């Protein structure tokens, strides 16, 4: 894409992209640190994740303001318009993902007081890493304008869903085995669900990148892997 005749316009758009990347970086870090704080029973790190969410929220606000300013002053059209529409949605998704990370950190502070559920921490950390990788690839796809990479991310969400399904069954089993596990398992289950939702939001972001690059939202349904709504019984 050629440069604008008005170079200040290019600087404005680049500025917004930089803010999105900053926000994305903070959110990636929040996901990993939330999962690590659980695995390492690190209450201080969990507290740090909760604190860091303020910076993410502040960036979202800043991005919204910059986007509104650009719409008012530049009347963007075509790809420029799609860029502005996309950053608004990307920042909203990032903010939600940040909230989920914060929620995981909050539950970690409670969970450290309880007996660990075997294997759960590692499984959640693996799931969180997968989502963080998806997010990283989505942000790369955004910066490079790479719709193919975004499509790959979009397809990857079913892996996260499958991890979540497996954990869901595991937690059910633990709870049935010993009711004293219920509190911990409920918290862990919410964490798993949070990560699964992060995956969905990341997928939405990937679709936004496809829209930004191609001008069209992907139409074909992506594979969905969350089957837990249909679980009636477990062994």
């Amino acid at each position: 894409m050629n440069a604008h005749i008005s170079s200040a316009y290019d600087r404005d758009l680049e500025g917004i992209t930089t803010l999105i990347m900053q926000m994305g970086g903070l959110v990636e870090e929040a996901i990993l640190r939330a999962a690590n704080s659980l695995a390492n029973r690190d209450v201080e790190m969990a507290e740090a994740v909760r604190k860091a969410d303020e910076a993410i929220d502040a960036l979202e606000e800043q991005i919204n303001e910059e986007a509104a300013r650009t719409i008012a002053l530049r009347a963007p059209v075509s790809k420029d318009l799609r860029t502005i529409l996309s950053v608004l949605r990307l920042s909203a998704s990032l903010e939600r993902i940040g909230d989920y990370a914060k929620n995981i950190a909050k539950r970690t502070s409670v969970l450290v007081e309880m007996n660990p559920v075997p294997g759960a921490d590692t499984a959640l950390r693996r799931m969180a890493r997968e989502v963080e990788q998806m997010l990283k690839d989505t942000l790369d796809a955004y910066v490079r304008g790479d719709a193919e990479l975004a499509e790959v991310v979009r397809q990857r969400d079913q892996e996260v869903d499958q991890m979540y399904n497996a954990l869901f069954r595991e937690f059910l089993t633990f709870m049935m085995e010993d009711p004293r596990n219920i509190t911990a398992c409920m918290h862990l289950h919410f964490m798993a669900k949070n990560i699964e939702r992060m995956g969905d939001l990341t997928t939405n972001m990937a679709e936004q990148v496809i829209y930004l690059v191609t001008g069209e939202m992907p139409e074909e349904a992506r594979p969905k892997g969350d089957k837990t709504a249909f679980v009636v019984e477990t062994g």
Partner: protein
Amino acid sequence: MLDDKYHVDRAVGTMQDNKITAKNVQVFYGETHAIKDVNVAISDKTVTAFIGPSGCGKSTFLRCLNRMNDTIDICRVTGDIHIDGEDIYDPRVDPVQLRAKVGMVFQKPNPFPKSIYDNVAYGPKIHGLAKTKSDLDEIVESSLSKAALWNEAKDRLHEAGTGMSGGQQQRLCIARAIATAPEVLLMDEPCSALDPIATAQVEELIDELRQSFSVVIVTHSMQQAARVSQKTAFFHLGNLVEFDDTDKIFTNPQDPRTESYISGRIG
């Protein structure tokens, strides 16, 4: 001729009622090739905007549609332009009659140095559209009303048209153009000499005129094209680069040259 009246609009994939069909139109000014093989079908009861940088040929092409280029000696037009299936370059076509059917409004308001009434009544008079004075009064009133000027003009019909404000003068010119009951209205940058309020009034008017006419507007304001038109044609260096639904052109144009132009890029 079915071919000229209808065509399959590749952009939307539907049959549309075409008012104007241009095929392989070339325009030369002496040695200069100003319009290069333009093919376009303009729908009835639709506002079509022509956009493009200065010198791209959009005004030249607009002027082909009512043979205004005939007045330029060195200008040569080839190809076919049909309005309602009729070849407007047929030697039997009287350009004066054609221009009554295909009205035109220019960049600078150019009322005749006559009264408001006479400005509007002139066309119907010379074309014999009114038999009696009351017929003529009626045409004047309805034209001024359609041009959203009646309320401002009704008490000063016999004052000079040139004494009005710029925006009023432009609406007077529009009233004059529609007084001959044209079917097509060509507008060559009709708002470039107007302030934003007068511009908004003329744009509102264009939207109303669409009920009755096929309107073709040349504009340098991309925002104006986006606001008033349903179809947009982008011209560049004498070529018609892209012609599509206006919202498509402004959200997701297919040609990189269109993209560059509308988003203000170098290229």
